[in-house]
């Protein structure tokens, strides 16, 4: 009969060296996760995103020939709220910004969009697979504060793309400043981006409010593209306007995050100041632009 092993003093034993303690098992069983797809909680699929990047790259490079200025001002880590002007009947600026940042900085960008997207079959699903998220303060907060992501938002909403060509590069109202409040609450900077080129890629010649009402859309325009390419192709083909994007200095709000309430007047002032900055940058860029098509 083998001699019993001498008792080991657990307190003095070298940590994990001498004694084989039974492995500590949690009370609850380890949750299993038999996922089959890579669709994340936001509906984004990195595989779909990669495919979309591949398909979109020629558009980005050869049709719009996007050119960035100040891309280094976009933080390489941590959350930030990207804010840009919004234009073209079917906005061409969101994919350009998202594609540009993802390919240049290797950071995913989540684009906040009107819930109209989500209610449209196919469009809504595709949009969410490539990084679109319904614009809801909770979504923005979670992405920015808890997941430290880049979030793109167009504070003009649908008023930007809905404007007539004669109003190009004149920024609409920046909503009710909700984007500033979210950035304050999430404790992240706002990074303004001025985009030149989108306006001319699908300019609106005529708005038909009756048609918009009939289909429950925010606006239903006739564009130059419709005249050139017909009603169907004209709704998806862009004119080859030269894109120039200027990233402005990030705006840090010196204010405590997670407050239950932020001063509405401060929020509105900050929103207006950011709007002014983008507006001035646009005028500056347009002054030096020699051609709509060649920049």
């Amino acid at each position, binding site marked *: 009969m083998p001699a019993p092993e001498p008792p080991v003093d657990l307190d003095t034993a070298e940590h994990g060296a001498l004694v084989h303690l039974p492995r500590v098992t949690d009370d609850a069983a380890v949750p*299993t996760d*038999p*996922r*089959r797809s890579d669709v994340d*909680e936001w509906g984004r699929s990195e595989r779909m995103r990669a495919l979309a990047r591949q398909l979109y790259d020629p558009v980005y490079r050869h049709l719009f020939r996007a050119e960035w200025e100040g891309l280094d001002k976009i933080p390489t880590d941590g959350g930030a709220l990207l804010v840009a002007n919004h234009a073209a009947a079917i906005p061409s600026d969101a994919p350009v910004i998202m594609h540009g940042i993802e390919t240049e900085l290797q950071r995913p960008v989540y684009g906040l969009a009107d819930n*109209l997207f989500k209610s449209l079959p196919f469009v*809504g699903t595709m949009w969410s697979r490539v990084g679109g998220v319904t614009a809801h*303060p*909770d979504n923005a907060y*979670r992405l920015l504060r808890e997941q430290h992501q880049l979030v793109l938002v167009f504070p003009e909403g649908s008023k930007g793309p809905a404007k007539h060509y004669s109003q190009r590069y004149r920024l609409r109202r920046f909503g009710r400043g909700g984007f500033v409040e979210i950035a304050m609450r999430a404790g992240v900077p706002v990074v303004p981006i001025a985009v030149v080129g989108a306006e001319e890629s699908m300019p609106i010649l005529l708005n038909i409010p009756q048609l918009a009402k009939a289909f429950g859309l925010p606006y239903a325009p006739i564009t130059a593209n419709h005249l050139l390419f017909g009603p169907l192709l004209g709704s998806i083909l862009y004119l080859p306007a030269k894109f120039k994007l200027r990233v402005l200095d990030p705006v840090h709000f010196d204010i405590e995050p997670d407050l239950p309430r932020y001063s509405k007047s401060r929020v509105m002032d900050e929103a207006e100041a950011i709007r002014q900055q983008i507006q001035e940058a646009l005028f500056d860029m347009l002054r030096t632009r020699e051609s709509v098509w060649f920049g």
Partner: protein
Amino acid sequence: MGRRVLVTGLGTFWGGRVAQALERDPSVEVIVGLDSYEPSVPLERTEYVRADESYSILARIVRAAHIDTVIHTFLVVDSTMMSSRKMHEINVIGTMNLLAAAGAAGSTVRTVVVKSSSLVYGAQPEDPVWFREQTPRSKPPRTRVEQSLLEVEGYLRDFAEDNPHVLVTLLRFSNVLGPELTTPLSRALELPLVPAVLGFDPRFQFVATEDVIRSILFVLDHEVPGLYNVAGDGLLPWSEVAAICGKRQFFLPPYLTGVATAPMKTLRICELPPETIDLLKYGRGIDNRRLKRAGFRYEFTSAGAVERFAQAVRLRGTVGDHEPQYRYQRDVEAFFRHSPAVVREEPAP
């Protein structure tokens, strides 16, 4: 002195399961179950009282049995099970009567736990990806079941305000999946082809039946009052849910979906109520972190719940339904519980 618990809906899936779980808990002294239907699962020491959903005898039972805890599981969340009038009677009128009895003068009730549903959040394109407990729904309720559950929650809020000495816990459960539970979604997933809405692939969240029962016991044990979402971690697209179940999808038109599903209902293939169609278009996620912060640990993620459900369906498909069908027999139950001839083990001191 142990808890003296009253469970509503003892004849339903949840009432029976909750009572079974309570029986295993030695700190629970008395379990009284109400329902107009007999229990569908074998119970050892639960006392079954036949009562309709108006709970007219409830105040007397509470007084007579010194009930201190009410677990209200009898809320209808599957609107295909009955007419909306009947559902209104059970959910709204039933809860109203129950709370009136629990809050009556001299009532011994100190804890009320209500099993509600994430249906109260609705499913709309405007919704956030995750609903927190305090996030309001995006649009007013459209469906009867949502309306009735919101009314129930309203009564419960009033009750909690009027009875500050009572711990009131409201649990909102996500889509529940389990091997033995039938819901509109489980029926859809058991079809040879899983219905989906063309052009939509929303993200779904699930909670396993065990986690539902465990969460109810958890809030009893830890005495956590308030409002809690109960749902497994993670969201997964409906197409992936079908894939885990090993099924292909068939597609319903994205517009007039309700009209298109009417023949399916007539032919008894599958009934998709309007709240399920909304879900098949827009999905819904509820933030489960508040209950986790209170200390609850889930056994299953959303995907885990789906996988286990799929395995159970597969097994049933192969070996058939061999569940021993329990039938409640009043005389037999009374004999085992109360006859002096039965030698009962003394409860451990």
